[in-house]
Every structure is written in C-alpha cells, then in structure tokens.
C-alpha cells in the first residue's frame, strides 16, 4: 500500500530546508486550504453530475448529454452561470443574518470534510475524538438553515427552517447512537485508529448483526440529516416552493446547493469510514495473496469507491420514495429509530463483552 505521508513529509522537509518553521506552517496551511477548497468544489460538482445522471437512468432518460462529451461540461456551465447571477438583496430581511447563513452552512461542511481520511497518510486533522468532532461540527449546519429561514422574512422559508430544525436535531440522536455502537466495537474514536482497526475485517462484518443494524440506522438517519428524500421536508419543493432557500439567488443559493451535495459525500464518507473500513482495502485474515492483490488498488480509490457506492444507495432512496410528512417523520424517529438504536447499542455492548465478534 502506498503511504501518502512520504510525499507530505518530503514536502515538509523541502520547505523546512529553505524557510523558518513558522513560514513552513503558514505555507503548508495555505496549500492545504487551497487543495481542500478545490477538492470541495470539484467533488460537489461531480456529485451534482452524478446525481443527475443517476436519476436520469432511474427515470428512463439520458440526463445531460449535449454540453461536452456525455454532458461532462454541464456543471461548468452551471457554475459559470451561478457565479454571474444577480444576488438580490431584499427589503424586510435581516441583511446580516441573510448573508451569513450560507457561509455557516458551507463552513460546517468544509470542516467535516477536512476530517475525512482520504487514504493511507492522507488525512488533515486527526483527533483522538475525531468521529465525535465530526458529528458535532456537521450539526452546526442546521444553524445556517435556521438563520436562512428566519432572515428571509418569508413564510415558506420560515416553515422550511423550522421543519429542518426539528428534523436535524431529532435524527442527530439515532445517527450518534448508531455510530456509538461502532465506537463501542472499536474501542476508540480516533479516526486513524478506527481505520487500522478494520485491517483484518471491516466493522460491518466484524460486528455482525448489531453492526448491520447500526449501518441501516445510520443510512436512514444520515439521509434525514442531509435533508434528502424521502426526508427532504425543509425544501419540499411541492409544498414550500424551495423551502429555506426560497429567497436566495445567485451564488448564495449556489452555496446551499453545493453544501447539500457535499453533505451527501460527507455522510457517505463517514459511513464508509465507520462500517466499510474507510480507505482500508478488503482484507480477509489469513489470505495473504488475496490481501496483497487488494493492496495494489490505491487507498484513495478504495475510499472514494465505497463513498460513491453509499451515495448511490442514498440517491436511489431519494428518487424512489415519496416524501414523508413532518409528524410521520418525527414519530418515525422518536418511536422507532431511536429505541431501536438504543437496544442495538446494548446488543453491541453485549456482543463485545462476550467476544461474539469476528
């Protein structure tokens, strides 16, 4: 397996050789920030394209075809257009909060994005409470949505934002509990250690039944967290026109749009980290030949492949299911999902205590 830290260490030493340490840190921070933001926007664009094409195939259509080969340039056209669209400032809005809201949403998702382990040695931040930190920061996004709804001075936005608040706060719980089950199995919250703990067997296999239940619970809760169908109530197009971002135009709307897709990547990334081994190739203990072949595939491909696969499932949900209603949504969480998640956590604890794991 190729260790990316070789490159990063080489770059670090190169800079240290020609400038003082504080300058090295500064330059590295800038380089990382640029790469991060570029990766963020490129991935978001890829995701928009990915979803459009996928939903077209679900619906017996072709999707974008004419702009560039297979419509690959479509997203660039969209971005150019979005950048030059007028940003309308409105009478009766809370100007400061109205402008602040999209930045909060983007900032929250960029921060989580930075924590994801991309490959062997390709990770920006590694805390000993990494997964905990990611959960905490990702839920900051809801503040942006609430602000957007409140500041817009529009009834649709307000109803959309309130729904969003209720929904995201509720589903956070089962999402946390589902991940806690895995933390219980792994015995660590450190992202790096989580990945290495899956060297011989991914958690979804290792934790057997409780892990599989946790995976399903997580997928449902994550879909709700990202405001995607069937839980897309905050922007329920057919009820609230565009929900909390009804009044946003141009690039402010673009930010909501990008962060929505990036959140999809992030929750899929967390799922692949926690259940499918992150960048860890598929290993079977004892089969050294097979494991070596798997190691030939670069770790970053493993990570992206797993993440895209999970995103595929979530997109599949969205285009298949009708939308639930707000009371059904909350009843589902509080009456079914959360109790199941709690029981599952206990089950996992029992399994771990008795050693019923692979």
């Amino acid at each position, binding site marked *: 397996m190729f260790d990316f830290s070789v490159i990063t260490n080489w770059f670090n030493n190169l800079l240290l050789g020609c400038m003082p340490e504080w300058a090295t840190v500064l330059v590295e921070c800038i380089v990382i920030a640029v790469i991060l933001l570029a990766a963020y926007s490129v991935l978001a664009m890829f995701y928009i394209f990915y979803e*459009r094409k996928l939903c*077209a195939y679900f*619906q*017996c*259509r*072709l*999707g*974008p*075809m*004419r*702009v560039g080969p297979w*419509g690959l*340039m*479509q997203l*660039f*056209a*969209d*971005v*150019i*257009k*979005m950048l*030059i*669209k*007028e*940003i*309308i400032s409105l*009478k009766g809005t809370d100007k400061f909060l109205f402008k602040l809201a999209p930045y909060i949403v983007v900032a929250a998702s960029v921060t989580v994005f930075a924590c994801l382990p991309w490959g062997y040695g390709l990770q920006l931040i590694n805390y000993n409470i990494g997964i905990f930190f990611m959960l905490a920061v990702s839920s900051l996004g809801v503040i942006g949505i609430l602000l957007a709804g409140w500041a817009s001075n529009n009834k649709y936005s307000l109803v959309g934002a309130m729904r969003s608040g209720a929904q995201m706060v509720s589903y956070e719980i089962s999402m946390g509990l589902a991940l806690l089950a895995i933390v219980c199995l792994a015995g660590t919250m450190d992202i790096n250690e989580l990945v290495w703990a899956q060297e011989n067997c991914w958690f979804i296999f290792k934790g057997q039944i409780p892990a599989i239940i946790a995976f399903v619970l997580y997928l449902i809760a994550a879909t709700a967290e990202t405001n995607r169908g069937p839980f897309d109530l905050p922007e329920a*197009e057919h009820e609230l*026109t*565009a929900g909390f*971002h*009804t*009044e*946003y*135009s*141009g690039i402010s*709307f673009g930010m909501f749009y990008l962060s929505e897709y990036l959140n999809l990547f992030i929750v899929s990334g967390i799922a692949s980290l926690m259940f499918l081994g992150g960048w860890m190739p598929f290993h079977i203990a004892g089969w050294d030949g097979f494991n070596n072949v798997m190691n030939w595939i670069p770790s970053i491909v493993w990570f992206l492949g797993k993440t895209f696969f999970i995103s595929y499932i979530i997109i599949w949900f969205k285009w298949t299911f009708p939308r639930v209603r707000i009371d059904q949504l909350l009843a589902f969480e509080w009456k079914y999902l959360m109790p199941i998640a709690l029981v599952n956590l206990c089950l996992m604890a029992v399994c771990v205590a008795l050693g019923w794991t692979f």
Partner: protein
Amino acid sequence: MAVTIDDVKIKSMKTEDFKDNEYIEKLVEELNATGANVAVGKLDQLINWGISNSLWPLCFGTSCCAIEFMCLGAARYDMARFGFEVARNSPRQADYIMVQGTIVHKMAPALVRLYDQLAEPKYVIACGGCAVSGGPFKKSYCVVDGVDKILPVDVYIPGCPPRPEAMFYGLMQLQRKIKIQKFFGGVNRKEKIKDFFRKHPEDAGEY
C-alpha cells in the same frame, strides 16, 4: 483590438436548420460594430456559453402548454439533455420564465411580480398562442392580448399548444440570442434597479 463574432453556433442544432437566420446576423453585425476588447470579449463569450447551456426554467404554467412542458421534461423529450432540467419553483433561482398559457387581468400583476423577482440575467419566452397574442381568447373581456403587453419577450413559440419539438426550437433560439448578448457593458443593472424603484416608490425606502 476587438473581438468579432463571425457566426453564432450552438451545439444542438445547425445554423442552416434554423428558419430565420437574418435577425441573428443583424444582431451580430450590431454587436461587432460596437465591439469589445479582447479580454472582455472572450470573457463575455465564456459567460454566454455558461448561461446558454444552463437555462433553468421557472415552473410557470397556467393551462394546456404546461402539460406539454411536462412532456418536455419527461422521458421521451428529456430536456435534461440540454441542461434545461433544473426547474426551479422559486423565481430567485430561475433564469427564464416560460409563460405557458393565457394570462388574464387578475394574473397579470402576479406575473409581472414574478418577473421582477427573477434574478438577472433573465429571459422571457411566450409559449403558445395565448401568451403570444391572446390566442382564441383574444376578444375576451379579461384576457391580456399577449404577454408582450406587460413583459419584454425574447422568444415567441406559437402553437396551441406548441409541440415539445417547437418548445425545443424556441429554447435553441433563446440560446442563440444569449450567445451574442453582452454581459459587460451591455446590461446596466444599476439603471434597471433605479428604474424599478421609480415604478415602485413604496419599495425604495431602504435603498
């Protein structure tokens, strides 16, 4: 040095397949006469390429034409192929308003309001006989005889209702018109906003 445009091409349809190329040639001539410098001109072309390939419609249908518009989005015609598919329900995020169906007196102010709510650059397509001229209801006591009485229209699509193919043709015409618009120096947004507040003094309070 100035950039000149020789030909307006869009990928989806050949120039000679359009029935009316004269007007576009005239517009190109006009544009070339005023000219723009290289940097701005090239940037203009890039921006126009972006806008023309990412036209998001505002869902606005009043009658039969709206059903044909739904067919346009459905599997057989699939306007997503051209990048037109992201139909927005909020006027702030849409690029053009396709007036599908009759506009009556009661609806007219609401339509003008929707147009005002669209973010620049914005376009209007009058789709169907009713939107073009009032159609079969022209003589009625409360029908607006064509949306061009209340909005600046870019493209007219006749038909009752127009076939989806006709709607595509109209959209391609709009794409061509966008290709030769001037983004820098062409649209003076400040003037437009001032103009709007002259018309609606009650909204101007905070500006």
